[in-house]
């Protein structure tokens, strides 16, 4: 129903010139407005509890880990791929980090540093596996990462015999997981914000980001222009894996547990956030900023519903509806801007093949 409202908007949009380039920004902006409106409504309904420092702190903390995953996911989806393995890689990396930190001993920063290296290495390794299989073996990303989703979780359970580990060192739990950097500003959110800013610069200001867009837009064109498409795809999946590993350590600090059974919805929630934030599942379009906004929406909704006494499960229904509406609108816009290219989701097909159809004769 929200779709029928937006159709006329698409039709009357009369600046074909830079339509496509504006889509992601436009959508991120609309989603930002939606977020602001949502916050305003809950604030009006619960003026003394919703917009308090305490509550905001909780929301921001809950978004932080998803945001770290979302940065990597945004890059992957812009290439026309998908990464379903982030939740399992997060768990696996948390397990490895926990084991390594126990082996190293101590509760201080040295231990955390060792754990950080272990978590990053674990995440990177899975990312490389994903990347090589997608880029070199040409297995569709959906299948590759569905495989590593299963395998990484399996390994994590083998290592732990299925029982969550809870031996994160004090420094990680107290200073990063629950600590504040100043006043009421949670450290974990600041860490996530740093990752987000890094992601924004990497995506919009560097060659790495440009190649990410180029591959999602027309991999063959990139290849002929001298972009090493396979190598870049591997790097993108490795980057997403690295961030999932990092998120694994943050997760360990925040939940004081490896949360083995608790991450099955994580990849879908992150993908939903990325898509709601205006990154096209067709590849070639998107922004990290949009992703962050897109990730806030479910968390703000859940928090708000609890406060106003609506069953929090409604959040899932609303998010599902918003997701479908947003992707539908994205599809309409793309069709309008590209005048009818086939709407086939690229991550179902082989890497580098997607979106590379020649658009000869489009005049």
């Amino acid at each position, binding site marked *: 129903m929200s779709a029928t409202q937006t159709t006329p908007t698409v039709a009357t949009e009369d600046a074909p010139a830079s339509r*496509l380039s504006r889509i992601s920004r436009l959508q991120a902006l609309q989603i930002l407005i939606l977020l602001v409106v949502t916050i305003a409504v809950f604030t009006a309904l619960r003026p003394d509890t919703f917009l308090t420092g305490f509550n905001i702190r909780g929301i921001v903390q809950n978004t932080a880990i998803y945001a770290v995953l979302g940065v990597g996911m945004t890059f992957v989806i812009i290439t026309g791929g998908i990464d379903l393995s982030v939740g399992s890689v997060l768990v696996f990396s948390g397990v490895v980090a926990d084991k390594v930190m126990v082996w190293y001993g101590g509760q201080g920063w040295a231990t955390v540093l060792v754990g950080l290296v272990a978590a990053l290495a674990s995440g990177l390794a899975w990312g490389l596996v994903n990347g090589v299989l997608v880029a070199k073996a040409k297995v569709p990303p959906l299948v590759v990462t569905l495989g590593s989703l299963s395998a990484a979780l399996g390994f994590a359970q083998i290592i732990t015999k299925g029982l969550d580990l809870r031996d994160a060192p004090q420094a990680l739990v107290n200073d990063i997981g629950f600590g504040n950097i100043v006043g009421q500003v949670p450290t974990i959110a600041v860490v996530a914000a740093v990752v987000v800013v890094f992601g924004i610069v990497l995506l919009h200001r*560097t060659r790495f980001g440009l190649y990410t*867009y*180029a591959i999602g837009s027309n991999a063959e064109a990139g290849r002929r222009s001298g972009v090493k498409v396979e190598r870049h795809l591997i790097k993108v999946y490795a980057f997403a894996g690295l961030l999932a590993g990092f998120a694994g350590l943050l997760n360990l600090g925040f939940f004081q547990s490896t949360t083995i059974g608790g991450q099955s919805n994580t990849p879908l929630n992150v993908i939903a956030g990325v898509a709601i934030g205006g990154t096209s599942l067709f590849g070639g379009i998107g922004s990290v900023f949009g992703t962050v906004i897109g990730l806030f929406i479910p968390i703000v909704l859940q928090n708000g519903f609890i406060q106003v006494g609506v069953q929090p499960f409604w959040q899932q229904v609303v998010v599902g509806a918003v997701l479908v509406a947003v992707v539908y609108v994205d599809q309409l816009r793309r069709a309008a801007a590209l005048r009818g290219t086939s709407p086939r989701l690229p991550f179902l097909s082989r890497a580098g093949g997607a979106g590379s159809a*020649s658009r*000869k004769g489009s005049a």
Partner: protein
Amino acid sequence: MTVPEAAAGAAATTEDAAPLLSLRGINKSFGAVHVLQDVDFDAYAGQVTALVGDNGAGKSTLIKGIAGSQPFDSGEYVFDGHAVTVTNPKHANELGIEVVYQDLALCDNLDIVDNLFLGREVTKNGILDEATMERRAQETLAGLSVRTVKSIRQVVASLSGGQRQTVAIARAVIWNSKLVVLDEPTAALGVAQTEQVLRLVRQLADNGLAVVLISHNLNDVFQVADRISVLYLGRMAAQMKTKDVKSNQVVEVITTGRSDAIGGITNGNGELK
């Protein structure tokens, strides 16, 4: 042997200038299929050399060899006075050879500047130097007398077919290239846009570049080409000057491979071979 000044534009009509690109006795096979057989081919700075021939004659194979993406099996490849061996596209680019392929290969979601510089971006401390790239893009388009694009920050998806072709061609010349090969640049275009692209092709040659134009449209060829080379079943049937021949004679060579119609095979300088 080297004639650097000759390439600098003024030499456009010099009769006896040495060719910028000179191929002799080129052979190329795919498995048992002998696609190019003892092919000779020349292209001159400041001139448009049309490469024509029926479907499957070997035109694309010849230019892929020139571009290094499918290196020749044997033969002599002389560029700018030097015998070279071009085995990959990068090597060709370094020599100053650029190819605009039949299917343009632009990134729709990227804007004109991004597309012009893709693969060869200008960076400063790891950050894309957008200002410099924009300036050079403006200069290049101005140098080609392109006035049809509104903004160089427009995404390519929003451009017309002719404008897209223009971007693809500008991409090829932005790096001070010497030889530009265009594979059927007007194939998908309407009348007005074809005119626009042909003007651009002529402009490239007038700017001093050697241009090789593959086309199935003899009207286009006679409009812009200085020389015509005809491939027939993998052999060079004739190389001639446009002013020496008529359209129907060229058609005859294309369809029969026999150059009797133009009085025997010539080497493009009007001499019998």
